[in-house]
């Protein structure tokens, strides 16, 4: 039952971050939020699906709240959460339904194209969405009270813990085993009685909701959402985060991988050649993975 320590570990880490000063508090919220998107990418990787459009869900979660605030002037957290889950869930269903027939590179490109259509819409409808400048995200309120940094950190930690718990359950579950089956040999899994399309559809929705909630949290933490959230490069980073997570043996691997990626990316910005720092790190991770996990 060691896996059940994951949610506890996440909450503990978030609590520790709370006492680490304002920047660490912010960084913890940002990382926990981003990690939810990584979870989405990771979940689909369990099926062998490389989703280069997961950023669309991430963007939708944040835009749902940002647009709510802009047009309905509501900063209510419950409303925002519902809107984010609804928008991202619907998008996940669309992506899943549309992607059911495609696999491999075709699936990747289909999801990328879908997300880029959303990106195009967000940039194009300048007067509605704020265009490339993006939207302001308010401090969320719960029952009319600002939840503040502490509240946001608690929210992020709870969400991440909840999804870690889901990941733990998933790993042991029938559904998780079917995912492994689909990844290795889809036809065989289908011949054993699994409705592959249905599994992928449900997981797409779950992954999309996770990413949408992640976008909402990151949007709150930076008070801003922009179409960059939906750009395919953003999705690419999440896929890389998901890949690192899949190299890690723990259920909270998605949080660890998000923390590692974001920390290194932020750290790299102080150098004249940041790409070399991030690229070098990825190489080192891959080499380490190859060294330790050889069969």
């Amino acid at each position, binding site marked *: 039952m060691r896996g059940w320590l994951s949610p506890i570990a996440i909450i503990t880490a978030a609590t520790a971050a709370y006492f680490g*000063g*304002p*920047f660490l508090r*912010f*960084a913890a919220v*940002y990382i926990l939020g981003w990690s939810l998107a990584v979870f989405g990418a990771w979940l689909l990787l369990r099926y062998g699906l490389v989703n280069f459009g997961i950023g669309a869900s991430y963007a939708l979660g944040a835009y749902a709240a940002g647009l709510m605030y802009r047009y309905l002037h509501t900063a209510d957290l419950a409303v925002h959460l519902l809107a984010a889950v609804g928008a991202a869930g619907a998008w996940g269903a669309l992506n899943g339904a549309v992607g059911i027939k495609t696999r491999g590179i075709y699936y990747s490109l289909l999801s990328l194209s879908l997300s880029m259509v959303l990106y195009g819409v967000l*940039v*194009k409808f*300048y007067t509605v969405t*704020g*265009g*490339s*400048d*993006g939207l*302001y995200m308010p401090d969320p309120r719960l029952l009319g009270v600002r939840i503040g940094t502490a509240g946001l950190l608690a929210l992020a930690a709870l969400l991440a813990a909840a999804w870690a718990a889901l990941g733990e359950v998933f790993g042991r579950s029938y559904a998780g085993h079917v995912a492994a089956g689909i990844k290795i040999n889809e036809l065989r899994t289908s011949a054993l009685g699994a409705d592959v399309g249905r599994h992928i559809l449900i997981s797409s929705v779950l992954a999309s909701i996770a990413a949408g909630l992640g976008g909402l949290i*990151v*949007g709150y*933490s*930076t*008070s*801003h*959402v*922009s179409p*960059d*959230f939906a*750009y395919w490069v*953003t999705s690419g980073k999440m896929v890389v985060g998901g890949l690192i997570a899949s190299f890690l043996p723990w259920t909270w691997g998605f949080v660890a991988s998000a923390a590692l990626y974001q920390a290194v*990316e*932020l750290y*790299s*910005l*102080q*150098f*004249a*050649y*940041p*790409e*070399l*720092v991030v*690229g*070098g790190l990825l*190489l*080192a991770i*891959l*080499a380490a993975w*190859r*060294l330790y996990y*050889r*069969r």
Partner: protein
Amino acid sequence: MVSRRDALKIGASFVVGLGLGAGLASIISGRPSAASQSGTTISLSPPTSSSATQTGQGKEVFKLGVVTFQTGPASIFGVPALNAAQLLVDEINKAGGILGAQIQLVVRDESGGPDKMVAVYKELVQQVGVDAYIGLISSADCLAVAPVAEDIGTTLTVFFDCATKQLVDQGMMKRVAFRTGGTTVTDGVSLAKYVLEVMPDVKTVAGLNQDYAYGHDEWDDFKNALLAMKPDVQIVGELFTPLFTSDYSAQISKILDLAPDLLHTSFWGPDLVNFIKQASARGLFQKVKVAFARGEFGLSQGMPDGQIVEGPDYHAFPDPRAYYVNRDFVNAYQSRFGSAPSYPAYHMANAVLGVKYAIETAAAVENVAWPDLSAVIHAFERLAYPAPGQYIIMAPNHNAMEGAVVGVSKGGDLEKFKFMYPAEVNPPVGVPSTQWIKSL
């Protein structure tokens, strides 16, 4: 289970990784250091008045955060800007620093989007503890960072380049945030005025701009200013292209088809170069005159003669022979980096000098060794100071009233300069830009 071959392979890849790491380390340590070897000293700073009457504790090190593009297509702006920052900081430090405090640059890359820029802002302010922050070229980045800066409210924050008018129109720079440059309104109005001077009979105009907020703003401001001043001008086409398009042949065909008297574009970076190359190969410049809002970088890339190019600053204006501040800046920049400073370098100079003068002025006014933030803000709101490109006049809306240089391309340079005075090309404080443009 690891075979020898595989072990070797992994070992080799590790060595490659390590080599890369070592390479990185050497690059990092090899980045241009604070020590300058240039012989010329810029005589920008007035003698620092550190007299015995001052009270309070002075500062030894002044940490200055600078954030600008070092990677990606926009590094064509960011690199000259950072160069200018390093140059000026070295010169200021050599002359004794700011009130005796040596400036220490803390540089970050402006890559990763607005949310990453908020993260970087918080890191610099809350973690590194910079004394002032200068940064940002992208409008979206500024719009994301401004509310956060005001919310934290502890650190003087100067936007040096982002040209979005929203910062002013929506009053987003309330207390700690300032901008030492103009907006797209400055660009559009100055360009429109110049166009009407050199082409008084212009009848038909088309626009070709990048399809994002900046491109739309540049075009709207130019178009509206032109229409306000000459209502009989006809807009025959408004084209927008995705950022970083490599092929403009369809747009060029369309423009040749429309055959306007004038084409307006605010293209920058690879888009600007691609457009100039492809348009001149198709003979567009023989048929249509083009007004460039960001054309300076195209001058060395084969821009044909006779095209209208807006500064906002240009290294040959104000004439270095007459204006020593620009002369010293151009000479020092040229001898250290091998090329003349481009306009982002001037914008950075505005910001660095603004921070320095605001602090020194505040200290002098308050008669303290080191002024507190509110004193600096108070001083900055009313500051006017000489910068290499022009005299910068700060307005109470925390935005500089910046003028603009417009000229005509000739042999890779600009000529027939006209300087548009700040009051000519900026709305009065408190007047929304759209309303002001209509009244031109």
